[in-house]
């Protein structure tokens, strides 16, 4: 049972971190292209330092929160977070909203920075560094939240963190080598999978926080994953059919 929870927590943290790191990399690369590696790198370092500070200051406070309160709070946030991702992934897979395109995001961020360059030439290094800092901090906060959330109270925080850090290092390494946004990463499929996993964990933790003894204990997570996956795939099929009928 423990290994089942650990396995799904590691997969969820790794895939989610992969997506977040790809999104952060796109912005950092745009900053580097427009203004050079110095402000981009300084923004990354400052973002990582701010993240570390947040984890060091707020992390120990979690030990003082009663377990059921932690499970309920994390469960609710995970449900909100996971179902938000899943909803978007369903709508994208059904063709109702455009797929997330890292190349387009890179072009848009580059254009915005160039526009800022035109208006505030003097302050541009500062603005470019800030964009890089914000990307690393916000995407990093999502990674930290997911790692804490999927390993809540189960003693697997260290190993799940390693999976998340490995995903981020992998993206950073590939980004350094190719010097291009990672547009080929199947981001929507990853978000679909992560949305299913996080929603399932959210349901499990919310129930535990409310005092529900799920049948099969940790095995219930597998059942929730299957339920969310079947529901989401069914919704994509229905929406796609409806869209095709409307077009023809």
């Amino acid at each position, binding site marked *: 049972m423990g290994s089942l929870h650990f396995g799904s927590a590691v997969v969820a943290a790794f895939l989610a971190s992969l997506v977040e790191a790809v999104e952060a990399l796109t912005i950092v690369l745009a900053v580097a292209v427009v203004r050079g590696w110095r402000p981009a790198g300084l923004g990354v370092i400052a973002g990582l330092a701010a993240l570390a500070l947040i984890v060091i200051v707020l992390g120990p406070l979690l030990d003082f929160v009663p377990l059921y309160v932690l499970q309920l709070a994390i469960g609710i946030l995970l449900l909100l977070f996971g179902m938000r991702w899943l*909803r978007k992934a369903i709508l994208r897979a059904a063709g109702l909203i455009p797929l997330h395109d890292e190349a387009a995001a890179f072009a848009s961020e580059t254009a915005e920075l160039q526009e800022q360059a035109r208006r505030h030439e003097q302050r541009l290094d500062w603005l470019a560094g800030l964009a890089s800092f914000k990307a690393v901090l916000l995407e990093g906060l999502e990674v930290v939240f997911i790692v804490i959330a999927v390993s809540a109270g189960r003693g697997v925080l260290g190993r799940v963190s390693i999976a998340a850090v490995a995903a981020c290092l992998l993206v950073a390494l590939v980004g350094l080598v190719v010097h291009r946004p990672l547009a080929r990463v199947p981001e929507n499929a990853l978000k679909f999978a992560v949305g299913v996993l996080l929603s399932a964990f959210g*349901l499990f933790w919310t129930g535990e926080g409310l005092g529900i003894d799920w049948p099969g204990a940790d095995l219930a997570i597998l059942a929730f994953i299957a339920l969310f996956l079947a529901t989401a795939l069914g919704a994509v099929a229905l929406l796609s059919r409806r869209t095709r009928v409307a077009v023809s």
Partner: protein
Amino acid sequence: MSALAAALREIVGLFVDDGALALAIVAVIVLAGLVTVFAPAAVWASGGILVLGCLGVLVVNVMTAKRR
């Protein structure tokens, strides 16, 4: 002050994208919580509300997304 508000908006945005979806999820959780408090003997019902409620909310939200 505006920077703080912008930062808060970004953090809230991590969890809330579609207000209707977020409200519906919270409503399902509150309902399941009320059943747990007022009918502790029927805690299984609370689990059912949570599971079916979340799946139902997701389906209704995406099916009505186009209209909205």
